């Protein structure tokens, strides 16, 4: 399975920021995190992505020391930290609800960590002020958290964590509570802040777009299991299974059976050219991105795409300015097709008989492991 290929590579390299080996976390009968293997490099922007309840927060909390693994090993820069309390770890967290201390002003909130580590009052205050300016909150030092907007509270939480110079910064859906515009602004800011500081960020989100735009690498989780780790391109172009294919971006998932190493058979018997590593007879799904598909008149299929084409009827078309999104009914299911809209491009009305085709390198066969989505 794909995840084991990934896991196999994890031979604890000493300079990894975080090394998670065979970690499982159970709460009573609930398996929140299920045998996860993961390595996060120093200085990388790493996202953990998955739907709600898949175990992202639990994984993050184990790195922070707020939860201890039931099984497995967890190392930070080579040191085993399994059951070390949070205050003994070189990591800091930006909590989902920010968790700012309501009885302290912004300055005291940010200076808290330094004071706890024994910095003098004035040292702590000056480092805190500096960090407050860095997150663009200069002048707000004396305010209480309740007197700040959501975005400002977010920045305080960030400053409060970063001022301690953690070796790894953990962020649990830090932008979840912000509105869209502010969210996009903060995405850019977080990313440049991370580059500037060179610290590893481990960023938890259930928003695939956010993960794709911000991260160097992404780990996709589902029901406590780590499904795949890779760059945005890897996940998008070469998902290891149905779930990842469906969760990252938009795709058409077409059920099929493997005929041989080059061919699969679709539900209506059509043979399609699709190189794959599976045994003949294996149930698979073919992932076909809407933007990889071309559309044209029924008898218009270019010669080289004959083996990767289907006939269908347009049932709906939506104009998005830069593109047309067609719903094309093939024999047994609707497919989404997205074409660039140019002044010269031909538009097919609902009811038109059309052919669709694609490059054989752009379909992707994934095992049908029953990860329905």
């Amino acid at each position, binding site marked *: 399975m794909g995840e084991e290929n990934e896991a196999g590579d994890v031979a604890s390299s000493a300079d990894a920021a975080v090394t998670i080996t065979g970690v499982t976390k159970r709460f009573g009968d609930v398996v929140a995190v299920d045998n996860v293997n993961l390595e996060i490099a120093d200085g990388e922007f790493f996202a953990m992505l998955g739907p709600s309840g898949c175990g992202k927060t639990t994984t993050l909390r184990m790195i*922070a*020391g*707020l939860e201890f693994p039931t099984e497995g090993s967890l190392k930070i820069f080579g040191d085993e930290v399994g059951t070390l*309390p*949070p*205050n003994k770890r070189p*990591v*800091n*967290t930006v*909590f989902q*609800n920010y*968790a*700012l*201390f*309501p*009885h302290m002003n912004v300055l005291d909130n940010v200076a*808290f*960590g330094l004071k*706890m*580590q024994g910095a003098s009052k004035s040292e702590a205050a000056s480092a805190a002020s500096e960090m407050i300016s860095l997150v663009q909150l200069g002048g707000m030092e004396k305010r209480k958290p309740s007197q700040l907007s959501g975005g400002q509270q977010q920045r305080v939480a960030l400053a*409060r*964590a970063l001022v*301690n110079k953690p070796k790894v910064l953990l962020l649990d859906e830090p932008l979840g509570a912000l509105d869209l515009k502010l969210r996009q602004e903060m995405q850019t800011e977080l990313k440049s802040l991370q580059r500037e500081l060179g610290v590893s960020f481990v960023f938890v989100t259930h928003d695939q777009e956010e993960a794709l735009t911000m991260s160097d690498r992404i780990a996709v989780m589902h029901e406590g299991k780590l499904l795949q780790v890779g760059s945005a391109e890897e996940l998008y172009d070469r998902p290891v299974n149905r779930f990842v294919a469906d969760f990252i971006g938009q795709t058409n998932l077409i059920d099929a059976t493997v005929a041989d190493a080059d061919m699969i058979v679709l539900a209506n018997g059509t043979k399609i050219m699709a190189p794959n590593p599976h045994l003949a007879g294996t149930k698979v799904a073919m992932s076909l991105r809407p933007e990889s598909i071309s559309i044209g008149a029924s008898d218009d299929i270019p010669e080289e795409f004959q083996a990767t084409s289907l006939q269908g009827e347009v049932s709906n078309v939506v104009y998005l300015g830069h593109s047309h999104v067609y719903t094309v009914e093939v024999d047994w299911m609707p497919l989404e097709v997205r074409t660039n809209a140019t002044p010269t491009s031909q538009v097919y009305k609902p009811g038109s008989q059309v052919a669709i085709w694609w490059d054989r390198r752009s379909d992707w066969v994934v095992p049908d492991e029953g990860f329905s989505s």
Partner: protein
Amino acid sequence: MTTVLATPELEATNERQKRRRGFFLALPAYIYLSLFFALPLLIVVVYSFATRTRSGGTALEEWNLESYRKLGEPIVTDILLRSLTLAIITTVICLVLAYPFSYFLATRRELTRNIMLVFVMIPFWSNFLVRNYAWRVLLGNDGPVSQLTEGIGLGETTILFTPTAIVLGLVYGFLPFMILPMYAAIERMDWSLLEASRDLGASGFQTFRKVTFPLSLPGVIAGSILVFIPSLGAYVTPQILGGGKKTMLGSYIVTQFLTARNWPVGAAVSTVLMFVMLMATLIYFRKGGRTL
């Protein structure tokens, strides 16, 4: 068709009517409180400036501060000091007992919590006087406590009719008033703040000092005042468990009114006591009132 616009006059009338309606609704309570609460209080204050006649009556003339001057005499200051000391000791003991208990309570499951809260309140279901007599039996010379200490070779327990017994009784009587607001404050606390504190490098003890305790402070203040005030003016417990020997303020006031027949002095002590409590209440509303 005419259009009715909300003119400023109309709105002012509406506003006035709304206010008047509110006033009428509150009127019964106003009258009751004025007649049976404010007026008696006023009488007490007025009497504190009156003169005791030789026959033990009270002359409502020749207003003077004589009764207040008497409060400076050693007998009264002794009692005042004793009352303050016992009330403070009671409050501190309640605080020390209630904090860990409230913390424990607030961290239990919902069901456990509710069952334990019922246990905290069970004493209220029987009469305060009766419960004090029960303590008298418990602490008495051949009561269970004494028998126990004798049994294990510590000798007789003779704390009945001592200040210790009074404090025991007061703590017993008022502990729930400390627990409830404290529990409410701790229970309402955002526990992720404690995690944030640990995450930022604070030890468990530092977290308690810098985060947990400050956040529960409103409950601590509310509870302290709710225990301190009734302890200071307690009458039943000092009378029954203290045997009226070492009197507290409550007993002294009763004596002034009933035995010594010196109403002005009784009234003056009451007035001072009320003033102290008023101050405490003000602090409570400013610092801790929000938790209840």
